[in-house]
């Protein structure tokens, strides 16, 4: 104790300095709005930046959930596009009550398995019959057509990809509505290109022209498929074979939208009755 007192009296100048300095500093901070504001501001800024760092990390960890929500949001927004309205695609009277006449609706699904390098490629998605996926539905990717639903289990579905030798999709040229079938795999196994067959010889096409769905099949009309990359390929007698660069990058496909064509069943039955007659 004595030593402590000796120590304090020896260094009393410094100790007293700290006491008086601290008390005047407290007075300064507490009684002057400017100094108080800048004190609190600087500390708040620091605190906020720490919060932001943690939040950035959290956001990164939540990317999967955010992706899922964005994908389903996309599906919902696709339902709002006027093109789903049957009255517009068949030229009948426009119905103001669009909800009850919605022809196309979309299910969003995640790709869980995918191949692009086989002769016949399939895609597996994480939605099945429980979610309303049915065999024969069209499947769209973020950039365009992907394929057709082939098999359905309760929780999964397989898609016959566009990159499949059996897949034929009705497609047309954007400029003149001439339509043909889009096929893949006839001597060409590049996942970026497909062939548009059965375009009549007199149709003039340009490189770079858009190829879209025709609306005669599972897909709504006007969905992009790709662009013309080569025009002069002679196919059979009076038809052109057009090489099309596909809009969808199948190798990086992660989310797809399954198209539910509400009047598809009806169309199928009535078309079938033509054949039986």
């Amino acid at each position, binding site marked *: 104790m004595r030593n402590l007192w000796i120590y304090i009296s020896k260094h009393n100048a410094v100790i007293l300095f700290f006491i*008086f300095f601290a008390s005047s500093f*407290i007075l300064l901070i507490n009684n*002057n709005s400017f100094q108080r504001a800048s004190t609190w501001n600087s500390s708040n800024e620091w605190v906020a930046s720490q919060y932001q760092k943690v939040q950035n990390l959290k956001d990164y960890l939540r990317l999967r959930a955010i992706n899922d929500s964005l994908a389903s949001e996309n599906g919902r927004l696709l339902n709002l596009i006027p093109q789903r309205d049957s009255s517009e695609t068949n030229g009948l009277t426009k119905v103001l009550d669009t909800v009850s006449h919605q022809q196309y609706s979309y299910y969003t699904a995640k790709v869980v398995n995918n191949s692009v390098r086989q002769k016949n490629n399939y895609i597996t998605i994480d939605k099945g019959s429980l979610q309303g996926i049915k065999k024969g539905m069209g499947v769209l990717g973020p950039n365009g057509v992907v394929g057709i639903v082939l098999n359905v289990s309760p929780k999964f579905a397989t898609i016959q990809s566009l990159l499949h030798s059996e897949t034929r999709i009705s497609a047309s040229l954007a400029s003149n509505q001439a339509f043909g079938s889009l096929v893949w795999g006839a001597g060409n196994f590049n996942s970026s290109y497909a062939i548009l067959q059965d375009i009549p010889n007199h149709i003039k096409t340009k490189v770079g022209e858009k190829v879209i769905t025709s609306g005669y099949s599972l897909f709504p009309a006007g969905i992009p498929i790709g662009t013309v990359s080569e025009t002069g390929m002679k196919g059979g007698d009076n038809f052109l074979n057009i090489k099309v660069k596909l809009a969808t990058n199948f190798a990086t496909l992660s989310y797809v939208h399954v198209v539910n064509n509400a009047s598809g069943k009806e169309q199928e039955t009535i078309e079938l009755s033509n054949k039986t007659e």
Partner: protein
Amino acid sequence: MERIPLHIARFIGLVFIQLFLLKNIGFYNLSTPYIYILFILLLPFKIPNFFLYALAFGCGITIDVFHDTLGLHALACTVLALGRILFLNLTISNDSLETEPEPSLSSMGARWFLLYGLLMAFLHHLTLFIFELFSLSNFGGTLLRTILSAFFTLFLMLVISLVFYRKKAR
């Protein structure tokens, strides 16, 4: 002891000059004299540290009350008191404390007093301006203000000291 009324009179006089005259004097806001620190500088050699700090603190608070900057001048005066203790310890030997009552111009000589006044004014003003701005940004501007103000203060200190100059009774 018999010099206490002198110190009180000096305190009142300097604070009065500071508050009612010098508060309105400035040189393009660059050079503002704070002559009241002369009171702290001229406190007796033998004053205990605690009283030195308490008087410096009280003097600063008095100025603060009139300037609406509670704590700012008190803080600068506390720093000044520490500077005074260190400076006197370094430059004054114990035996000279016996003969002289206080570190004034007339007792310590011009060279010592000029250095003392300039350093103390610089220390006080630097602390004052830094804590007034409450940031170290534009430190060059603060330093310029400090130097110009310190010289202004020193000049006024010399004027006052010369007015009350007393020949050494040798």
